[in-house]
């Protein structure tokens, strides 16, 4: 114990360590029946760190390029010791991270944690979700297998449907008219440089905002607690909550390890741009609800092309979603019920469409 204390003392003298972590010591987490949902943000952050670490490890052997990408991933999976584990953890962790990010968002939505003064936390969070989905989309192509190749083709094709800016945007994404080695280079760049940079910045902002504003209390409880302060129950963030969070991280690690060891991520078959697309091509599960919606829209709605309409509607919904806190009243007792209704509908829609898309031929 004492050498540790010496190090702490040494650091404190030079960095003002105590001053740095003082806010953390003061920070509290409200304690109530729904406190468990507060773990989700931390788990997502933990999975992001796992992604960064395993991503860096994968970079040691991965090579972008139409002639090399697949082979290098195959090399990682078969020749490099524990390569299968690192790659499988990277893939599984990516999927879990997107799942926990979604869950985090919906928990924030239902607990009404996005209200004033936390609008910016919500906005940064939604942008982070989009970035994470961008990670998923770009990373999916990197092994350069058939499924990824065609999923990317379809995905970027949909981008091309946006009026006016769609076509240039598609060409920007693809690095040309078609999905080629140029697309792979770009997606690699997005995946390992652009997106991590942006995401790290936004995560810092997001966490800083959480730190500044404290942890939100559900409005009903807030009204109760302000009326009767003796009912108020809290837990210290450091170390009590953090230790619990650490337990959650360890559980996440165990789940990741088990998934990776028992169900190593498949590599599939090397992409061949000249074969026809395999039947029933589907995107990753987190895009499935959008994909299925686009499939269900009739080809012509009134006078607008169905796909264009779908893409426009998704764009609009995404924008409104981003701005959601600004439709909410800031008074605790006057929360808007319709927003909860919208949230329930959105959750049911995303879940239902995903399942439908998964089951549909």
């Amino acid at each position, binding site marked *: 114990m004492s050498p540790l204390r010496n190090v702490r003392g040494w650091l404190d003298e030079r960095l003002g360590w105590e001053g740095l972590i003082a806010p953390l010591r003061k920070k509290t987490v409200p304690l109530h029946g729904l406190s468990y949902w507060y773990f989700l943000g931390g788990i997502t952050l933990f999975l992001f760190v796992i992604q960064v670490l395993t991503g860096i490890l994968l970079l040691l*052997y991965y090579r972008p390029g139409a002639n*090399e990408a697949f*082979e290098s991933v195959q*090399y990682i999976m078969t*020749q490099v*010791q*524990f390569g299968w584990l*690192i790659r499988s953890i990277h893939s599984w962790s990516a999927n879990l991270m997107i799942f926990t990010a979604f869950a985090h968002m919906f928990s924030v939505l239902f607990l009404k944690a996005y209200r004033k003064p936390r609008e910016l936390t919500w906005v940064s969070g939604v942008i982070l979700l989009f970035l994470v989905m961008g990670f998923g989309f770009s990373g999916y192509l990197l092994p350069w297998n058939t499924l990824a190749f065609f999923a990317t083709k379809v995905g970027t094709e949909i981008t091309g449907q946006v009026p006016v800016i769609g076509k240039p945007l598609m060409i920007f994404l693809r690095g040309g008219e078609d999905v080629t080695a140029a697309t792979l280079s770009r997606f690699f760049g997005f995946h390992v440089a652009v997106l991590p940079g942006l995401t790290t910045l936004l995560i810092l902002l997001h966490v800083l905002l959480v730190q500044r504003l404290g942890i939100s209390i559900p409005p009903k409880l807030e009204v109760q607690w302000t009326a009767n302060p003796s009912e108020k129950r809290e837990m210290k963030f450091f170390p009590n909550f953090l230790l619990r969070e650490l337990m959650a991280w*360890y559980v996440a690690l165990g789940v990741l390890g088990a998934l990776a060891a028992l169900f190593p991520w498949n590599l599939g078959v090397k992409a061949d741009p000249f074969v026809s697309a395999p039947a029933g091509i589907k995107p990753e599960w987190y895009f499935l609800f959008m994909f299925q919606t686009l499939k269900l829209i009739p080809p012509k709605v009134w006078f607008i092309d169905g796909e264009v309409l779908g893409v426009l509607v998704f764009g609009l919904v995404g924008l409104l979603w981003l701005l959601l806190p600004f439709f909410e009243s800031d008074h605790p007792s006057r929360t808007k019920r319709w927003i909860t209704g919208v949230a329930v509908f959105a959750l049911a829609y995303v879940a239902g469409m995903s399942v439908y898309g998964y089951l549909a031929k």
Partner: protein
Amino acid sequence: MATSDQGMTNPSDGQSAPVPRRRFVEVLLGGGFLATAAAFVYPVLRYLVPPKLSDMGSDSVVAGRVGELKPNSGKIFRFGNRPGLLIRTASGEYRAMSATCTHLSCTVQYRDDLRQVWCACHNGKYDLNGRNISGPPPRPLEGFEVQVRGDEIFVRRRREA
């Protein structure tokens, strides 16, 4: 789970003697941290060690060593996940081609008596450029480029011009 049960059996000790219980938790926690750290670090360290089989990239492979092949002989080497055939002609020249017969995908071999590439399955024959010259094969064998660098014979897929 078993370990947490173990932890649960202790409270009676803990109540009578708080110090051993405290020690127990610390040892448990410290040991657990060390064990998990080992479990994470070990695979990563092993991962960092470059594999013995160096990665040549998809379109080239070391098919053999100089001196390994006598003139007028051939050997099968592995090219990706398909077999390849490296031939040293009677005049000492190296040739390489796919070893998968274009008829029914048997593995072909070099016949020093015929000085041809021969498929044992249906007696298909190819010349030393991989052209199908007799028997059932419908197409020539895919030819590879051969380069001798130092002691090693590299075989590379032909690039489209």
